[in-house]
């Protein structure tokens, strides 16, 4: 029972790191995908290189670079901020790619219909194409969120006291290593399953609205 308590102690920070970095990704992914689709060559290639860079470096390496390397003036990132920023930036790159897929899945006629009505580019994107692209993107976004819950365990390597941090601590302090890791596994599964259910429910209710 003590082992379970130890594992559960890490849940708040696992949720915080996942939720915060996912939010950063969901928001920053929007300007990034707009850059990827820009007609302006320099902007487009800058965004393309950014995405390639963010996706090409392992999360654990990013976290160490930000934690040990980056300091702004006298301010050094603490472990939690470093984890959130690192995973948040990576999420932004993945979200941008997910959005890009979603946007290209929307029929070109939707842009044309907006434009023909005299609606501006931005409003056509934000009110007509965007919402449809988002709906298409929800399943991929959920898959990403689920893998992010698990990837947030990487934050334990820079000392963020999330699930794996406490689990490892408990295992080292003597108790049965297998038991506590199995408990940790169960807790992760318990967090991921509802997310999948929620996504499928959201997807089918949105689908019901737009199709016969």
């Amino acid at each position, binding site marked *: 029972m003590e082992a379970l308590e130890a594992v559960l102690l890490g849940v708040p920070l696992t949720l915080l790191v996942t939720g915060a970095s996912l939010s950063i990704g969901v928001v920053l992914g929007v300007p990034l995908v707009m850059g990827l689709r820009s007609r302006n060559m320099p902007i487009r290639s800058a965004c393309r290189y950014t995405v390639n860079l963010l996706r090409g470096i392992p999360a654990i390496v990013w976290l160490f670079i930000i934690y040990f390397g980056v300091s702004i003036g006298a301010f050094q990132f603490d472990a939690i901020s470093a984890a959130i920023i690192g995973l948040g930036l990576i999420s932004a790159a993945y979200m941008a790619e997910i959005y890009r897929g979603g946007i290209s899945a929307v*029929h070109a*006629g*939707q842009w*044309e*219909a*907006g*434009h*023909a*009505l*005299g*609606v*501006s*580019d931005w*409003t056509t994107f934000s*009110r*007509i194409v965007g*919402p*449809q692209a988002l*709906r298409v993107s929800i399943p991929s976004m959920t898959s990403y969120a689920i893998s992010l819950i698990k990837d947030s365990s990487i934050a334990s390597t820079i000392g963020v006291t999330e699930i794996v941090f406490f689990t490892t601590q408990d295992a080292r302090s003597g108790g049965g290593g297998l038991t506590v890791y199995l408990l940790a596994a169960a807790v992760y599964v318990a967090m991921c399953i509802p997310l999948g259910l929620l996504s499928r429910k959201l997807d089918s209710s949105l689908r019901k*609205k*737009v*199709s*016969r």
Partner: protein
Amino acid sequence: MDASQRAQPMVSLRGVSKNYGERTIFSDVNLDVSPGEVMAVIGPSGAGKSTLLRCINFLEEPTSGQITLGGRTIRAGEGVSGRDVQALRRKAGMVFQHFNLFPHMSVLDNVSFAQMRVLKRSREDANKRSLALLDRVGLADFAGSYPARCSGGQQQRIAIARALAMDPEVMLFDEPTSALDPEVGLEVLAVMKELASDGMTMIIVTHEMGFARDVSDTLVVMADGKIIEHGDPRQILSEPNHDRTRLFLRAVLGR
């Protein structure tokens, strides 16, 4: 007729050309459409009819030439500003082959959206206008439904209402019945006929020969990137000047 008495054309194309790289879609097209005129554009596929229509509201930017619509002129090719294009588009309503309704909005919102966003009408005013137009195309009962619940013919009538809601000075139709069953197409043609008799200026790219003959005031035949005939529909359909027109008419009428 005295030149001063002649009405200013509603739509006027001067030397309009469109290329995709090396490929010429059409070149040096000159065309005037008077207020209230209904013009049908026919011709074999690949002739450039749809591209020409889409150049009128700059959905495709012409490579060169100038387009005047309701007194607003845009010259192609020299840094066309987005603001000018938006202003020009506001004067033209467009109806697409595949309707292009917004699937995530109700029928009412489809018709009201641009009124609120572009014309800055209040939701109340926009909805009132939308309901009147939906009633006019016989679909007031569908205001609360989503487009996917409507048949193709109904969707196209909603698309017509959506375009009319912007109070356009000219309506552009890009093969509005081509994606519909012949029977369903009739209900769309009926709405268009009514619109024509109300005095709307219309340019219609179509394969509906009956409509071109009976409803349109002028007929344009395009082939191989050029306008090869332009004049009275009955005359062109019965005695075309060009062999190319004869060939085309034999294919569409003689089946």
